[in-house]
């Protein structure tokens, strides 16, 4: 059984996906969600194989929701976003359906995913049973009505699409960060609760192992992104990477003190002290117009 979840804030939009899915008895819709919060809960509960995800939704949008899911499943976006806006993501998502979409277009997206899914499963089976040079033809664990013939034709280039769906979702999220949708806030999960931090509330960011620690006046939050991701996404006129491990909000700066031989120390309104490297000091001066 293939488990799918539909996440869309418009009831009729969910209805149409469910209706189209009736042609695929192997795909079961385990839950429908009206917003991203419900969506996260449902994903954690059901561990679906496939998501039908709208982008513009209440509170947190589809991309932000995906960021908060530990192992995001494969995603087919269903959105009214115009093609231009979504073109950046098209190579990474399994597919995107522009509303309104017809059954043919929907079938194409499903078939594409079924192919990828079957290949990934076959690869998993292959590596699990007899590791490297197995010549077993991949077996589709879910021989859907239309995927069987196409499968055999695509097995030749198997190794590439194998890592597809999930890996793609991850790459996609990095791309999505650059959309204006997300540049004005950061969504984090803290103690099972979801918090939306407007960027102007950020005091500074600190590298912390594989995470970035976001310091705000309400405390610090962890986000599993890289410093260079934030350096690129955040507005360069407001956020400066002053140090390999620090990005600070220049509006929070009250004082800059010399520190050790080449470095400086920024004192923020909150009293926090942020190290500034030699190169960082040059950047900071440029942004502050000193």
């Amino acid at each position, binding site marked *: 059984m293939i488990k799918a979840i539909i996440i869309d*804030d*418009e009831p009729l939009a969910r209805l149409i996906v469910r*209706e189209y899915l009736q042609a695929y008895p192997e795909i079961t819709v385990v839950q429908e969600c009206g917003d991203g919060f419900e969506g996260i809960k449902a994903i954690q509960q059901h561990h679906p194989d496939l998501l039908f995800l709208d982008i513009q939704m209440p509170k947190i949008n589809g991309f932000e929701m995906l960021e908060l899911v530990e192992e995001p499943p494969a995603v087919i976006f269903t959105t009214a976003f115009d093609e231009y806006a979504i073109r950046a993501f098209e190579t990474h998502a399994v597919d995107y359906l*522009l509303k*309104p979409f017809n059954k043919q277009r929907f079938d194409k997206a499903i078939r594409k995913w079924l192919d990828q899914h079957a290949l990934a499963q076959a690869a998993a089976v292959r590596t699990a049973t007899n590791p490297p040079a197995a010549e077993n033809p991949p077996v589709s664990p879910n021989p859907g009505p239309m995927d069987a013939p196409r499968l055999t034709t695509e097995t030749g280039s198997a190794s590439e699409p194998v890592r597809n769906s999930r890996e793609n979702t991850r790459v996609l999220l990095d791309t999505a960060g650059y959309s204006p949708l997300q540049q004005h806030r950061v969504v984090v999960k803290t103690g099972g609760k979801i918090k939306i931090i407007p960027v102007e509330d950020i005091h500074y960011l600190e590298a912390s192992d594989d995470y970035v620690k976001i310091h705000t006046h309400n405390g610090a939050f962890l986000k599993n992104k890289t410093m260079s991701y934030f350096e690129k996404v955040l507005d360069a006129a407001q956020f400066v990477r002053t140090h390999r491990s620090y990005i600070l909000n220049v509006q929070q700066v009250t004082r800059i003190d010399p520190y050790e031989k080449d470095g400086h120390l920024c004192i923020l309104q909150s009293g926090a002290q942020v190290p500034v490297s030699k190169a960082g000091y040059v950047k900071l001066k440029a942004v502050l117009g000193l």
Partner: protein
Amino acid sequence: MLLLGFGLNPGTALTDSLVTNALLALACSFISNNLQYYLPKNERYWYILFVSLGLSGLILLASKGILVPLLGAKTGDNNYALFFSRSWPVRFDIIFLQMGCMTILSVLWYSSEEEQQNLQRRADAERLSREAELTKLRQQFAPHFLFNSLNSISALVGRQPEEARKMIQQLSDFLRGNLRRDDQQWVLLSVELQYLELYLAIEKVRFGHRLSTVIDHDLPSLDMRLPPMLLQPIVENAIKFGLYDTTEPVTISISARAEDHFVRITVQNPFDPETSRPTKGTGFGLSSIQRRLYLLFARADLLETRIEGCLFTTTVKIPQLSIPYTTNADNKISLTNNNDL
């Protein structure tokens, strides 16, 4: 007349003055014609001076060339030639003064004319660009709305074809209304509210039970007028804020009240103060409304936003321009053309 005093006989004096004045008039018309097509720039007035001086000299020479042989031959003596050679500095001065006056007058006249044309042109350009901007501001309605509505219709077609047909009708009416509007005609609030209800009905189909609306108005406000497509983006903005900033059911309230020379329209929507900063940027919808109001009324104080707890309130006041001039006979005209103000 002056020449008589120098002891010349009337015939000679008359001929002299006629010829001189004719030449002067010729030169003046030449200069003023020239200036009509070529106005010197500010720094180049010395050029006019030189032209005047040169022309004065030419006139003097020409009048000498005509008058001395003519009158000298008539009277048969040297008196006139003598008189002319004595009087030439005075003649030159007078001629030059007249030329100068003429030149200055023409310069003033033509430059003021040019100034007026410039003003006219600038006003035209401003009016055109304002019209273009207004058109653009009006037309920026969300394609999202259209595509999502079509998607809803697509979903309804299978199970509830009657509902689908109804929604297609509503959507068509709405789009038709959107196309038909132009800034030349202000609309009655009652008409605008009907149109708004059409829009809200479509949104309610899209969002189901999550969206409810309350519209209330007093009677006199229904007869008041407002520019078309001004209210709708405000409501659109409220819906966007309300629906996308909370996950709970949302109520949008719209109220209209008549006041002295104004109709005051208030739109209220819930929002989450934790995550949104509606005060900072007024959001796309509202900043374009602000701009439009400014273009229409040259006032920046007609749109106000207020935050009380979790409620975001947008208030817009539309001046009723015809009311202060009710005694005026062209009241009707000012009512339909008040977008020119």
